């Protein structure tokens, strides 16, 4: 019963097809409160599709999706803002939820873009826009966060900081996170559960289990599984937001 209570979204044998072609099929996964589930896999393996199934954007699906929360924050893989729409960062922050000024500022400063508040969305750089997208998703204090490559285009130091922020948010808000990423190295260290996709679930489990799995090695190469050993010894410390390193 308690596990049911913690479940935010659950996919059972879910699949989606478009133009008679299966984009992804037979996916079962579960995101629980306070847990990070990461989807990995090559291009076209159905990661974003799986996220959209979980979010209920795709409705004509095979299998079953059960969602137990309405407080959802979403960072899509691609958002293009039309020039015909004059939109400042501030307007974008309140797109789906009426937020107070404080909440907007807080979220923007968490992702380091408070100074962009009154800028036009169209004038941001790729990395800046990505930070705004993440700020918007977390500002409404969601129970479920779905992040589709949330740090694409962000500079290297920023990338690590944002992943740490994501981890922190998952702990502080006790929200469940469905994360899609290419960056095995950084992602694996913070994840509770990994689902390796390639049109279907190749393998899934804890990061260590997945890295040892033969299918994973076949998909990402021998090097990818060595990445894990690189990160494993990083487990003995954490980075605070100010860049300070603390021992566990």
């Amino acid at each position, binding site marked *: 019963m308690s596990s049911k209570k913690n479940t935010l979204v659950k996919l059972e044998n879910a699949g989606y097809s478009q133009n008679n072609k299966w984009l992804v099929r037979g996916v079962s996964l579960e995101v629980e409160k306070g847990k990070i589930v990461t989807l990995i896999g090559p291009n076209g393996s159905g990661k974003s599709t799986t996220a*959209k199934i979980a*979010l*209920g*954007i795709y409705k004509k699906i095979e299998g079953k999706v059960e969602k137990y929360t*309405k407080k*959802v*924050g*979403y960072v*899509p893989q691609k*958002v293009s*803002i*039309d020039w*015909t*729409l*004059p*939109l*400042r960062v*501030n*307007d*974008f922050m309140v*797109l*789906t*939820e009426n937020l107070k000024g404080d909440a907007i500022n807080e979220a923007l400063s968490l992702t380091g873009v408070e100074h962009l508040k009154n800028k*036009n969305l169209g004038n941001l750089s790729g990395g800046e826009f990505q930070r705004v997208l993440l700020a918007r998703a977390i500002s*409404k204090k969601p129970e479920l966060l*779905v992040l589709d490559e949330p740090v694409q285009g962000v500079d290297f130091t920023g990338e690590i900081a944002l992943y740490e922020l994501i981890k922190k948010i998952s702990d502080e808000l006790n929200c469940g996170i469905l994360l899609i990423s290419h960056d095995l190295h950084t992602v694996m260290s913070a994840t509770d559960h990994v689902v390796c996709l390639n049109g279907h679930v190749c393998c899934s489990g804890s990061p260590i289990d997945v890295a040892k799995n033969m299918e994973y090695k076949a998909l990402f190469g021998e090097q990818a599984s060595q990445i894990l050993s690189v990160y494993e010894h990083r487990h003995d410390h954490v980075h605070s937001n100010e860049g300070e390193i603390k021992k566990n």
Partner: protein
Amino acid sequence: MFDDFFIRALIAGIGVALVTGPLGCFVVWRRLSYFGDTLSHSALLGVTIAYSFELNIAVSVFLISSIIALFLIQLQKKTNLPGDALLGLLAHSSLAVGLVVIGFLTFIRFDIMGLLFGDILAVTVKDLTIIWFGGALILLVLKLIWKPLFASTVNYELAEAEGLNPDRAKAIFTILMAAIIAISIKMVGLLLITGMLIIPAAMARNISDNPKKMVLFAIIGGLLSVIIGLFSSLEFNTASGPSIITASLILFILSLLKIKQSIQLKN
């Protein structure tokens, strides 16, 4: 003072402009100007039906435009034709059928020019009631669906994922489009209604940096267009619709100067 036709036209025009401002912004943002054309062309059919069965023109136009809109949505789902081809198909065929029906209704004398381009002499006190009550209702509904409609205009998937039900907002917006066409047809004429929707909004885009400002400027632009247009219509004895649209075009051209200015400032 209400029996003065010009005052009536002015009050009607102001009522129309208050509604076309915000709706027009969505037409521009969502790239629906050709959709607006299709609905307004189909309005002619609504008018002829109103005459045939002695119905109220606004009600009949609203019903026919709504049916055409729903029909369009069905066609989009069932055929593989591109959207603009379907819009053209419906726009021209409903206009043609409307004109053919007029040909049959020989017992009624039609003012075709008035229908196509608006006729301020034709605005009655009853029309005023329809415009102001209908307009207030449209604005109220638009306010209610603003959040999901706007969010899905920015990004459909975000709105859907975060539980805003954008499909329902879109369907309601389509009905609102049919409604604004129904209440403004006498004023602007069915060929020019889309102009009344998009030109003030386009003008507003040039001079605003956020959505609320754009809506506000679109309303102001629409009001100015109506007032300038109607006075010149009276002065030069021109049709009301074209006069209003010409006035809005002049405002649009003036707004381009502002763009030029701000570009120079940046350099």
